[in-house]
């Protein structure tokens, strides 16, 4: 079984988080959610896997009311840390003229590792909106926000 670590940050000005994956057979999975409804949030996430470890990092960022989120996830791999397999994925939902800057940084000193990363915008297409409407739902922003906060 993957080891799941969940973190939720609500309207924080500063977030500083160290992720230290150490699982070898299975993955350490970090599910990080940042909800920003006002002001500015600066998030610095430091990922330092040990040798041969597996890890996945999902960073979900929701911003509304003109808020600004600046999030960097830094992967540090030392010379001795071979065999690492890691994946960092950002997904952002900016609403109401909010801005989300989300980026991975990688400092890798070992050639024998896998370091995947991705960055996607969580938008709803017209088809998605029609589907939600056909379920009686109109407030998409609230729906997504609640969904990110209240995951089962």
């Amino acid at each position, binding site marked *: 079984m993957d080891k799941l670590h969940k973190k939720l940050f609500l309207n924080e000005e500063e977030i500083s988080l160290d992720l230290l994956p150490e699982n070898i057979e299975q993955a350490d999975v970090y599910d990080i959610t940042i909800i920003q409804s006002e002001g500015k949030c600066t998030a610095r996430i430091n990922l330092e896997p040990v040798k041969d470890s597996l890890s996945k990092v999902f960073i*979900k960022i929701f911003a509304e009311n003109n808020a600004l989120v600046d999030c960097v996830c830094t992967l540090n791999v030392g010379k001795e840390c071979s065999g690492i397999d890691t994946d960092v994925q950002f997904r952002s939902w900016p609403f109401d003229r909010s801005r989300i800057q989300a980026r991975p940084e990688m400092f890798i000193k070992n050639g024998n590792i896998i370091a995947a990363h991705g960055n996607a915008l969580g938008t709803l297409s017209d088809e998605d909106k029609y589907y939600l*409407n056909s*379920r*009686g*739902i109109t407030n998409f922003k609230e729906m*997504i926000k609640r969904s990110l906060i209240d*995951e*089962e």
Partner: protein
Amino acid sequence: MLKLKNLTATIGGKEILKNVSLTVNRGECLLITGQNGSGKSTLLHTIMARPDIDARGEIELGGNSISDLECYERARLGLFLSHQSSPTLDGINTTSLFFEMAKIKNDSLKKIDVIKKAKAAFRDLNLPDDWTRRDFNVGASGGERKKNEIAQAKMFTPNVLLLDEPDSGLEQSSRSKVIDLIEETKAAGGIVLLVTHEKVLQDQYSNNRIELNDGQIA
């Protein structure tokens, strides 16, 4: 009673439905057949008020016109469309979506009860329990998406159930679940409109059937 009077539907300047009139009573299932492109799906989407469809004519439910109602308003009246291809909704957790639907239905269910109900519906369709925790349809196959639609219809007991090829992509053993759903909806006094190419379902409901041909009832 659901009544359509001279319903015409145009999409992107092309007339798809032409003066369709029909009546379906409570507790009835109307089978809609016809070739690909004959307007079957468009008919269901017109009843559901898809925004890109320019509809003319009259739609009445229980003697009241719903022609001017938006899609979400019709949904809140108990119209439920089982979509032929439902989307993937990244970031929208399945439980949260169902809970929202339950609240709209004025269901006094607590979230934990919604989860239990969803798990029971999923289990009945051989979907794993963890579907409630997933983002909506993320990683789902075509058949699993169909099952998700059926599960929702079972959970929320619609007044008007619009089934757009609910069986395509389903394994044989799950097809009986579609019949169960139709029968349960009818027994609860609901109205069912069924679009299908599946012979077993067509045979089952052939006593109340219309065929569409080039957007008109043949």
